[in-house]
């Protein structure tokens, strides 16, 4: 995805976040969603695993405080009404099902909502998990934002993961550069909620590793 496509994808995710939602944005692509939120017309409360609930922006040059950062280690500037807490409280909040939505990146997602986003399975790779497993299973809804296919053109929406799982049955919705899809508990198919203009159903199906149910498909925002 180029920058423009990434911003459009982030905008599609943000449009589906209701006012008053408690939202955690994973590092990488999901952090872009914050650029489409904010403003008094739709207030959303952000959660970051390192201990803040509230609303914030990236801290401008000159106002950066090394002790005030988000999960991506980026300095932030708080708006009024925030709260700090320690790490165990932060992860209690996630695991206890209090966050409405968490948005994560992914290597693969299965039709039943299994998520792989922490490890490629390459034995040479240095593993790191961080908060990924807690986030995956904790929120009421887990959204994934990712490219529809990998660098080799292989589908990232699959019938069964080939990468090591981060969590099972946890992803409810998948946003990619070419569409928005809902997972299904039985893993038989995904339901398309949106496909990008100019693409046929066949073109989308060909890039997807599971059967797509197009019966719900509608143009986003209509």
């Amino acid at each position, binding site marked *: 995805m180029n920058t423009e496509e990434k911003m459009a994808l982030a905008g599609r995710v943000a449009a589906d976040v209701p006012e*008053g939602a408690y939202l955690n944005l994973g590092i990488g692509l999901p952090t872009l969603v914050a650029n489409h939120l904010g403003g008094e017309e739709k207030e959303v409360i952000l959660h970051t695993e390192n201990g803040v609930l509230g609303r914030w922006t990236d801290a401008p040059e000159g106002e950066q405080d090394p002790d005030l950062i988000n999960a991506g280690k980026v300095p932030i500037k*708080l708006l*009024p*009404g*925030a*709260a*700090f807490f320690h790490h165990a409280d932060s992860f*209690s*909040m*996630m695991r206890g099902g209090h966050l409405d939505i968490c948005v994560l990146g992914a290597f693969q997602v299965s039709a039943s909502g299994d998520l792989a986003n922490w490890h490629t399975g390459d034995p040479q790779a240095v593993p790191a998990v961080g908060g990924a497993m807690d986030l995956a299973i904790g929120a009421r809804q887990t959204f994934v934002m990712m490219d529809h296919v990998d660098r080799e053109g292989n589908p990232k929406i699959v019938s069964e993961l080939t990468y090591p799982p981060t969590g099972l049955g946890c992803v409810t919705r998948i946003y990619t550069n070419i569409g928005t899809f809902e997972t299904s508990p039985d893993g038989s198919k995904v339901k398309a909620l949106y496909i990008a203009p100019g693409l046929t159903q066949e073109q989308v199906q060909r890039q997807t590793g599971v059967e797509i149910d197009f019966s719900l498909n509608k143009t986003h925002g209509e």
Partner: protein
Amino acid sequence: MINKQISDPGEAISRIKDGNTIAIGGFGGAGSPNVLIDTLITRSDAKNLTIVSNNAGQNEEGIAALLKAGKVSKIVCSFPRMKNAWVFEELYRRGKLELELVPQGNLAERLRARGAGIGAFFTPTGYGTVLAEGKETREIEGVHYVLEHPIKVDVALIKAKAADRFGNLTYNKTARNFGPVMAMAADITIVEVSDVVAAGELDPEAVVTPGIYVDHFFKV
């Protein structure tokens, strides 16, 4: 704009349904949400409630008044035997009120576990006692533990000192007691506060219960 302040607690209280489990804050009188309890008595038809609370009320105030109103079938509690707890005693002796007696630390931790998404936990408290009878046990590094389960709470009624429009709360002295863990444990948390402050007036370092755990608050 997010604003969790309500002017009429009766509407929020009407979300309580027959058979619900209601956690009520307070340790003795400190932190007891008496206005919310009175609203529950006068404005709700819900029956067969289970109350989770440290005490069972005194005289005919607070939880004692709720018990007297005949809305409660069970109480989960650590210390119902207080001075002037005659309402509880009378119902209990007549077999009109089921009591689940829980050691106080287990009560707090079972609420916290519910809020924190913990499926069950091992605690040494109560091992070998009548309060652990029939419960799973395990010896870990030479210490005996009892497996305790979370308490599922439908609605929490608590009292705090100050709230901003996001529902961030601070408490007053020892009136904090069970408020934070009950707010975490409940599906719906309703709070009575004495002060409402503008967003930003509560120091983010000093917020005790973040607004994520609060659904409605109103000023008494």
